């Protein structure tokens, strides 16, 4: 009871209750480098991520799935995709922890890309903290703010994701998209964005994140 409360308030920290292989994987992840080869968008390993939740509130809802796919060397490839299914109620704790560690291995220290990053990162941060005791603070590229900065001729202001997809004539199917379908749609937007960014002299991921932050600041405050 008391240990449960302590765990809840302070987190367990990596180690302690986790299986050995998970501990080792986490240690390896924490020690790993940020991608050395990020001299261009083409070389950068972008991880586009989307989550499914059973509600809208990061404090009380559960993540039911994480989908991620790479944009690397200009292409999106199904072979470089991952899906973590957290919806099953029968899955035991050790399996969930191992899956999350595997997710971190897949992500490495690569920059993450999503839409409404605050929402997605909030869920992931909390989950990884709670389950693995990991402080998850990767570099995030938020397409919500980046797209209006890069494609001002289409919209100066942030728009719902579907409006961008329609504006660009992307074939995204009908109805609600799964996290996988959503991450693939975001990956296509990222592909378009990095070509545009290069044309504007925004040549690296760090510059891209700066653009995204500047855009967020500019468009939120003005």
């Amino acid at each position, binding site marked *: 009871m008391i240990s449960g409360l302590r765990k809840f308030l302070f987190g367990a920290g990596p180690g302690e209750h986790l299986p050995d292989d998970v501990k080792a994987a986490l240690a390896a992840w924490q020690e790993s480098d940020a991608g050395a080869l990020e001299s261009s968008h083409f070389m950068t390993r972008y991880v586009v991520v989307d989550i499914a939740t059973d509600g809208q509130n990061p404090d009380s809802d559960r993540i039911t799935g994480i989908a991620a796919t790479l944009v690397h060397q200009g292409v999106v490839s*199904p072979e470089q995709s991952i899906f973590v299914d957290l919806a099953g109620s029968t899955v035991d704790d050790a399996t969930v922890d191992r899956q999350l560690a595997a997710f971190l*291995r897949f992500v490495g220290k690569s920059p993450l890309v999503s839409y409404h990053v605050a929402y997605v990162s909030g869920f992931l941060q909390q989950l990884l903290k709670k389950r693995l005791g990991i402080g998850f603070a990767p570099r995030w590229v938020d397409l919500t703010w980046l797209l209006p900065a890069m494609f001002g001729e289409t919209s100066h202001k942030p728009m719902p994701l579907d409006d961008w997809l329609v504006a660009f004539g992307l074939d995204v199917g009908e109805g609600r998209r799964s996290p996988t379908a959503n991450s*693939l749609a975001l990956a296509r937007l990222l592909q*378009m964005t990095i070509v545009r960014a290069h044309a504007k002299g925004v040549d690296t991921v760090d510059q891209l994140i700066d653009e995204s932050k500047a855009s967020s600041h500019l468009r939120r405050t003005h």
Partner: protein
Amino acid sequence: MSTEQESIDVGQVEAMLRQEGQRRAAGNTQAFLARHAPFNKMAPAALQLFAEKAHIAFYPAGSLIVGPDSGNVRFFYLIESGKVQARQAGEVTVTEYSILSLGAGESFPIGAVTAGRPSTNIYTAVEDTFCYHLPAEDYLRLMASSPEFNLFCTQYIASLLDQSRRQLQAQFAQKASEQQTLNSPLAGIGARNPAAVQPQTPLRQALESMSQLGIGSMVVTDAELKPVGIFTRSDLLDRVVLAGLSLDAPISEAMSATPFMLDEHATAYDAMLAMATHGIRHVLVTDHLGRLSGVVSERDLFALQRVGLRQIRQAIESAPDVAALKASAADVRQLSFNMLAQGIGAEQLTQFISALNDALTRRVIQLNLERHDFAGIDWAWLAFGSEGRDEQTFSTDQDNGIVYLVPDGGDQEALKQRFLAFALDTNKDLDQVGFPLCKGNIMASNPQWCLTLDEWRAQFSKWIRTPEPVALLNATIFFDFRPLHGKSELADSMRRHLLSQASATPVFLQAMARNALEVGPPLGKIRDFVTDLEADHPGKIDLKKYGSRIFVDVARIYALAAGVHGTNTIQRLRLSAQKMNIRGEEINAVLDGLNFIQLLRLQHQYLEGEPGRQGDNLIDPEKLNELDRRILKESFRQARKIQSRLKLDYQVNN
């Protein structure tokens, strides 16, 4: 247990999650593939292979995708969205297309990736474009494992045409099955929501509505619309007039109670059986709640009886008058429709329509010959234009003429007047039967086209010697002639004359070629089709003017040059190709293109034409399905190809 050993477990889990990720991402691609040929015909395993292996790449507008300088082609490219332009690299040959544009669902460069060589074309994104890249080795695996994909790639054009034909057939089959047969449910037969009154309605009021609506029976229903009786004209005599019933009496006193009813899911056959067994003329149709939803009469069921080829022929050949022929003409239309539904191709179908139209025309001529006697005189009735070529669709005007010989010592002028009088009657009757009078007055009743053999020969020679615009236009109509009745030797003689003159007059053929090249297929450089050529019909393409006519015109010139006697365009192209050193496969692709355009015209006229109205040749390419659009594009490319060849052969520079 060592740490290393343990860490493999997370690695294994990662492999599993990646596998799941790949499967789901592939599912996204599969959904796209399912909407495009030939992938929509491929087995699930083949699609999965494609979807799991294909990358997605983005090409901004203006960027090069692949070209001769890119080295051996490493991918099979499939466009997901956007537009790609293909240009021939190096010296452009006139016999091939120089530029074409590709859209979503189209793939390239099939030849190069199969052969593992560099592309001969330069492929450039003209809009922001997403492409799937299937690596060459996976492409080859797919070729080896999927028969559909193999067929698609090896017989690119032929397979596409074929698929489209099958799709058209499916469409026709559906339409035909929607057409009513004795197996059709009653829900689609007879009058829907028929007039009905309640039992307490006075007879006078019911009779007034029957008279106003022009109907022979009135259904009587209760407040819930459930039928309780039917009142027909025969009841009026027996139960009202003869029984001396007041017109103020409620209809319930005169109706036949407990009328015969069938559920709307029952078939026409059930209704026919009921009428025969119960000796009734009407069957009431009810919905699942037992409420009145329709009435089927005996006459509605008769209309369902199908017609067959032999009956039509017999009916035509023994038709006593024009009215009977008119009915047969309607049967011809119905039968051709059924044949189209059974998968008869455009070539056979147009010939079939022509054959039955010939029979109709011959019978009209025969009927008129009963009143006009030409015994002892050599003459023939000639068909021109599309009828002369055996290529009739349903919206064909009559184009005809007469050739005759004046007997020794005969009065030519008097004979001509007799032929003109006969022709006038025949032209009018043909119009009655359903072949509208020719707006350009190319008819046997026009003194200009009712000529002796010598006059026809002189006329042909004159057109050939002085190929001015009117002469060239006439050549496109009159040089496609065929005898329909009378002495065919006269027509043969005209043909020999024509061919010897035409093939000996290159200036004429060149003028014909220049004329034929004035209108090109409506292929756009960026957009697929040019649809603003007809000012009165924006957004539409005239499939005759910008499609089939191109093939017809080219075929005529080659036939005249090569001395081919046939008038049918397909025959002309096949026969002259041999003499003109055109390769068999090349000419087959051209014929496939023509056949597809003809099939689309027929489809348009049959499926979209309003019954009883002449169909037009105007189609809206936006309304075609994607496959048809692509094939139409390919067919137009074939038109352009054959025009390029004509241009080269006759050295036309325009």
